């Protein structure tokens, strides 16, 4: 799987799956899938260690979340020990249930982090930048300049720092960093000035007609308002159909407004991405898995997702459909290229 839009679909489906359950079995399945996928991709794409730092983050999150939850939560039937009531916030029963709940939360945060890490690994900076719609061209140009200048600014900062160290500046207090920041700022702004002159000389100015589009701003405001309204109406138990119509309306506004605004912008692309059959197939399967998941959740046909260790810790139930759907983020693994 290579296409950036296919990876966006993968990211959305995996994130939704992660955020909509607290069943540890499902979470472990998805964690195993993303760890395997990430390790394989890292081996192919980068020489840097990938698994170890991610596992370190996961363990840190598990410990932190379990600690906070156990110390501050005093519910659950299996009391491990009791802290004196006088101790502010942490005083009370320390229970096994709150410990497990904390671990589950840590698992979600850790898996979410690893999922986004895979997305970063899968796509290059160029691919991510290209995902931004054409109508935001000035923003993309600014980002491209920043990304292009970044390495040279880093290099210059290192050189200035070395020069300051040679001159006896210990670079320990914040005021010691002023002789680094000022020359760095001046030389970088000089470069920016040269760049702005050459951009002006090459006609990069006054493109107001292409980018000033009131229709887009107003449509996006309506889209945001409709999503917000659909969400709040759902909270107050209004029929799902009403919220769904609002979401649909919002999506329509976004797609139509961006399509209309993009058509007005004349920008050519170099090396366009092409959809391979693997991209198409995995995107269709991922969308199907996501849609099935949401349908099962909203119709209440997947009770195993609503697991909670409270009030008494019990083993989580699993359902075959749930297991199958939670294996869907491994689709890129099936279409993994070894080139």
């Amino acid at each position, binding site marked *: 799987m290579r296409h950036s839009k296919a990876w966006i679909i993968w990211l959305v489906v995996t994130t939704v799956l992660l955020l909509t359950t607290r069943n540890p079995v499902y979470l472990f399945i998805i964690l195993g899938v993303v760890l395997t996928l990430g390790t394989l991709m890292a081996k192919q794409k980068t020489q840097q260690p990938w698994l170890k730092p991610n596992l370190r983050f996961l363990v840190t999150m598990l410990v932190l979340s379990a600690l906070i939850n156990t110390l501050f939560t005093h519910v659950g039937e299996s009391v491990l020990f009791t802290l004196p009531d006088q101790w502010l916030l942490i005083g009370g029963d320390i229970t096994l249930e709150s410990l497990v*709940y904390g671990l589950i939360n840590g698992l979600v945060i850790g898996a979410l982090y690893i999922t986004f890490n895979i997305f970063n690994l899968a796509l290059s900076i160029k691919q991510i930048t290209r995902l931004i719609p054409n109508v935001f061209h000035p923003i993309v140009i600014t980002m491209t300049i920043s990304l292009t200048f970044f390495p040279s600014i880093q290099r210059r900062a290192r050189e200035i720092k070395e020069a300051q160290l040679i001159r006896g500046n210990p670079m320990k207090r914040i005021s010691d960093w002023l002789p680094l920041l000022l020359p760095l700022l001046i030389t*970088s702004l000089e470069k920016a000035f040269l760049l702005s002159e050459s951009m002006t000389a090459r006609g990069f100015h006054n493109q107001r007609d292409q980018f000033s589009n009131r229709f887009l701003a107003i449509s996006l405001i309506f889209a945001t308002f409709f999503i917000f309204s659909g969400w709040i109406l759902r909270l107050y138990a209004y029929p799902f159909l009403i919220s769904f119509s609002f979401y649909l309306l919002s999506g329509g506004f976004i797609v139509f407004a961006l399509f209309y605004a993009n058509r007005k912008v004349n920008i050519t692309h170099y090396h366009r991405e092409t959809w391979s059959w693997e991209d198409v197939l995995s995107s269709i399967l991922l969308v199907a898995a996501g849609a099935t998941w949401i349908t099962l959740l909203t119709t209440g046909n997947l009770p195993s997702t609503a697991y909670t260790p409270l009030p008494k810790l019990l083993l989580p139930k699993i359902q075959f459909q749930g297991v199958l759907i939670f294996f869907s983020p491994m689709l890129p693994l099936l279409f993994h290229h070894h080139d």
Partner: protein
Amino acid sequence: MKPNLLRSLLIDLVIVILGCLSLLAPFIFQQARFPGFSQSTFPIMVSLIIVLCLLILFFESQTALLDGKMIALLGVLIAINAGLRFLENAIPGPAGFSPIFFFIILSGYFFSSRVGFLMGALTMLISALITGGIGPWLPGQMITAGWLGQSSALLRPLINKFGWKEKPMEVVLLAGFSAIWGMIYGVVMNLWFWPFLAFTPDLAWSQSLSLLDNIQRYLAYYLATSVLWDVTRSIGNLVIFAVMTKPVIKILSRFQRRFTFKYSPKVDA
């Protein structure tokens, strides 16, 4: 008031209201305090709404960028600021301390609210792209840093009105502003993260309690998890502004004058 300015202010107002209503939904809407909702739907919906708010603000702000001069200037300033994020480890300071707020605030204060917004939001985006730090937290970071840069433009009329420009009071005001935002940044970012960690009855939202009680619970969660980070960030901002504002403002003033050249095509007689 000019129609364009009025339109921009209206859009800003709508975005701030929608963004704040989403982030503060559990405080405002009683039904949003149901734990099941808070842990699953809340992060997804808030991220979605914030991404849309960001798109609107980007679209509005990019009109401030339409000439090549501002694009080049902002691009380079963002690259410097993203580089400063790497210096977080090099510059001695406790956890939570970050030098990136310095240029975000100065850009908004010095150039305009739109440039300040772009500086804040794009610094977060660029540094996330470079470090591979794209994650669900990114939209929240971007909009909060954007609001920080945008709001710093409010100091400009105040300083001009009292004639504090290039006087010690200018530095004091900017330093104080940065210290307050050091705390606000943490408070806003925590609102997004709260549902993940705060399940506990003593710290989480409760449907049966009043708004005031829920705010008290949030404060307890905040005290327990992040206040130390935010205090060190605030103190760090205060020190950086006290030390660096004056010389950096001098440089920015000089370059602002140089960047105001105007291009006009030669007209044949």
